[in-house]
């Protein structure tokens, strides 16, 4: 078999095989059961709780959870703004990189506390080592917040009637220390021994073989690259992200990093099965997600390996596929595979330039972010999926003329309103802001000439991709977009902030309200949610709500580009 194809099949199998045991482990952590890492983490967590003045056994209702979550995020926002706007004159800045302007600091701060990691700066020149370490901190704790929110919803889905849904800080700290930290250490060490730098020395300088003077950026990269992959963050240490040879040195590290992208999102689905003791439901959810994922990844790999039609017309050989923006050591297949895994989850790290993907691969990358729940981001991916499940339950309930019930709880008008608003928010943010930027550009292409790196449909795709990525809290980009200007910094910042917190508030509210309701035991009249039929129903809802509402925009961008290929 072609070694590029066998490489990506291996990655997928490894991902699932590692996610299943990790899912049980995460389930045990959330449930407070014993695990083999307790020896280290019991004392560590106790220290966190003691110093933080937190009583982890004090349970909260859903509103208290939300207040705790939002308050700590406000603290992070202020702290990050201060650091990013002063880091030029703070320690750990051997390369003398400047502080950020207010609008860029606003964008970067929102981007990292919202787990997006959209980067309108370049790592080598736009941020000091101290800045990198603070951004790395947010990669841990923003991922921890997402997982904690997910844990609260899992807790609320249990078969009982209660207001008490565990302690937010308890879930948050344990997500950081017991899930993200040990995995990050393992991955960072693997990267170190494959050549990723971990140093506080500044740029190096040497004379190349043909006599050019070359400056080489380095830094404490290994520690950051590990968590950026695991926490569906995606914000790279270097500008080229995981295409950079120091950030992703070889095919082996590419496998490790790519597996990390999807590992925790899949594991959380199995954790759900463990916590609710509904393994079959977990497999149905995993099945729906997988079918969605495969339907995006297969055509993408095909088109990237087939090559660029326009270059084929120039009469040269494309045996290795479309290679613009791709690295030789990964090849076309693994680049396309990464491109889809990073967009269906809200990771957003890249090992190839998405702007130079062939049109349909670019579209599937966007679709992955538009759906945003085929595996999805750590924690928040499941929350998005939860919204679709609620809608699917409601619609199927209406279709068969029964009161919609989900896991023994009646779904009523209030929950449905919240679910619908959250489901439509994503579409609204992406389309309205893309319309705004397109309007500006179309009416004054001279003033905004620096925005677009490509003409025509592809230029439109660059704008559409940017807002899709912001709203999906993804962070990848069609990087040709000249996005380091106030307009993009501010509008993307607004989109990211709304698209982060509302989709956490919504599902938490629904889950909290449902948990309080009377539990109705399953009867012959109950709509069963752990069946293939229901899986198909969810899939249909996702396709109608997410995919179809974006079809007109996609038709103007990648689809038009595909059909106009000469």
């Amino acid at each position, binding site marked *: 078999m072609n*070694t590029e194809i066998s*490489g990506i099949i291996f990655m997928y199998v490894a991902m699932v095989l590692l996610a299943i045991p990790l899912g049980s482990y995460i389930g045990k952590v959330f449930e407070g059961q014993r695990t083999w890492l307790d020896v280290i983490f019991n004392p560590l967590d106790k220290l*966190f709780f003691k*110093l933080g*003045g937190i009583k982890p056994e004090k349970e909260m209702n859903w509103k208290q959870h939300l*207040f*705790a979550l939002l*308050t700590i995020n406000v603290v*992070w926002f202020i*702290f990050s703004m201060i650091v990013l706007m002063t880091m030029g004159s703070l320690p750990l800045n051997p390369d003398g990189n400047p502080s950020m302007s207010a609008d860029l600091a606003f964008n970067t701060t929102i981007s990292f506390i919202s787990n997006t990691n959209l980067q309108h700066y370049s790592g*080598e020149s736009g941020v000091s080592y101290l800045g990198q*370490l603070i951004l*790395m*901190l947010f990669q841990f704790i923003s991922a921890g917040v997402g997982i904690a929110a997910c844990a609260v919803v899992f807790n609320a889905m249990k078969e009982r009637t209660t207001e008490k849904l565990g302690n937010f800080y308890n879930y*948050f700290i344990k997500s*950081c220390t017991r899930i993200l*930290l040990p995995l990050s*250490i393992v991955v*960072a060490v693997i990267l170190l*021994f494959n*050549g990723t730098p*971990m*140093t506080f020395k500044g740029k*190096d300088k*040497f*004379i190349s*073989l043909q006599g*050019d003077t070359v400056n080489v*950026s*380095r830094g*404490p990269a*290994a520690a950051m690259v590990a968590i950026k992959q695991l926490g569906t963050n995606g914000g790279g240490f270097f500008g*080229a992200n995981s*295409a*950079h040879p*120091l950030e992703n*040195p070889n*095919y082996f590290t590419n496998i490790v990093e790519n597996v990390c992208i999807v590992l925790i999102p899949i594991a959380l689905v199995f954790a759900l099965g463990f916590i609710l003791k509904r393994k079959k439901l977990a497999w149905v959810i995993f099945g729906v997600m997988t079918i969605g994922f495969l339907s995006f990844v297969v055509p993408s790999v095909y088109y990237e390996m087939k090559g*660029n*039609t326009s270059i084929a017309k*120039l009469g040269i*050989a494309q*045996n*290795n596929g479309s*290679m*613009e*923006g791709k*690295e*030789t*050591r990964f090849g076309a297949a693994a680049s396309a595979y990464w491109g889809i895994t990073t967009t269906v989850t809200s990771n957003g790290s890249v090992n190839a330039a998405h*702007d130079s993907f062939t*049109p349909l691969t670019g579209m599937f990358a966007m679709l992955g972010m538009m759906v945003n729940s085929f595996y999805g981001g750590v924690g928040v991916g499941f929350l998005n999926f939860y919204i679709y499940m609620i809608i699917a339950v409601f619609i199927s309930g209406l279709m068969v003329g029964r009161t919609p019930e989900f896991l023994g709880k009646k779904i009523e008008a209030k929950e449905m309103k919240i679910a619908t608003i959250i489901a439509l928010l994503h579409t609204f943010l992406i389309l309205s802001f893309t319309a705004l930027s397109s309007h500006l550009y179309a009416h004054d292409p001279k003033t905004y000439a620096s925005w677009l790196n490509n003409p025509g449909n*592809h230029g439109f*795709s660059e704008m559409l991709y940017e807002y899709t990525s912001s709203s999906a809290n993804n962070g990848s980009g069609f*990087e*040709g977009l000249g996005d380091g200007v106030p307009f993009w910094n501010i509008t993307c910042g607004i989109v990211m902030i709304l698209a982060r917190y509302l989709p956490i508030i919504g599902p938490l509210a629904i889950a909290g309200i449902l948990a309080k309701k009377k539990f109705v035991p399953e009867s012959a009249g109950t709509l069963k949610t752990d069946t293939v039929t229901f899986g198909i129903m969810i899939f249909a809802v996702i396709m109608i709500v997410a995919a179809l509402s974006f079809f007109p925009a996609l038709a103007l961008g990648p689809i038009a*580009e595909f059909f*106009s*290929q*000469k």
Partner: protein
Amino acid sequence: MKQHILPALKLTIICIVFFCGIYTLLILAVAQLAPNKGNGETISINGKVVGYELEGQSFSNDKYFSSRPSAVNYNAAGSGASNKGTTNPDYLKDVESKIDTFLFHNPSIKKSQVPAELVTASGSGLDPDLSIDAANIQIARIAKSRNLTEDRVKTLVEMHTEKPLLGLFGPATINVLKLNIDLDKLN
């Protein structure tokens, strides 16, 4: 809201100390056992550093295997891709002129043999590798400009070919810098 402010502040400080401090120092400590203590692996000739093993560099002389085109001219302090769309007419013209330049330097090669990776820019602008096709296509030129037999150069390329991982996964590659260093040793 109020009762959450104090824990939020305290937890933030603890997380800064733990994740920015202790976690970073732990990885830094492990780095001391890694190749070149985590400073990046370099390649030296006669004690002088001539490059980083993982980072590509520019080779414009016909006597050397050329690396792939780079959108940032192999600036190892500012990586990046061209970000050109696949159907952009200006981009396609640029590719065409790269093809012509390549054919000019490699007159024995037919256009249909030119591998696309030699006329398209990499993702990082620092791609250290060539594909097998991209190395083989340059053998005739190298042999001619160095007065070597093609077989000798071909053997060297084969020696430098790094097979797929475990022979099973991913593409085979050739590190351009290492290949060119050994090429200099042939004369």
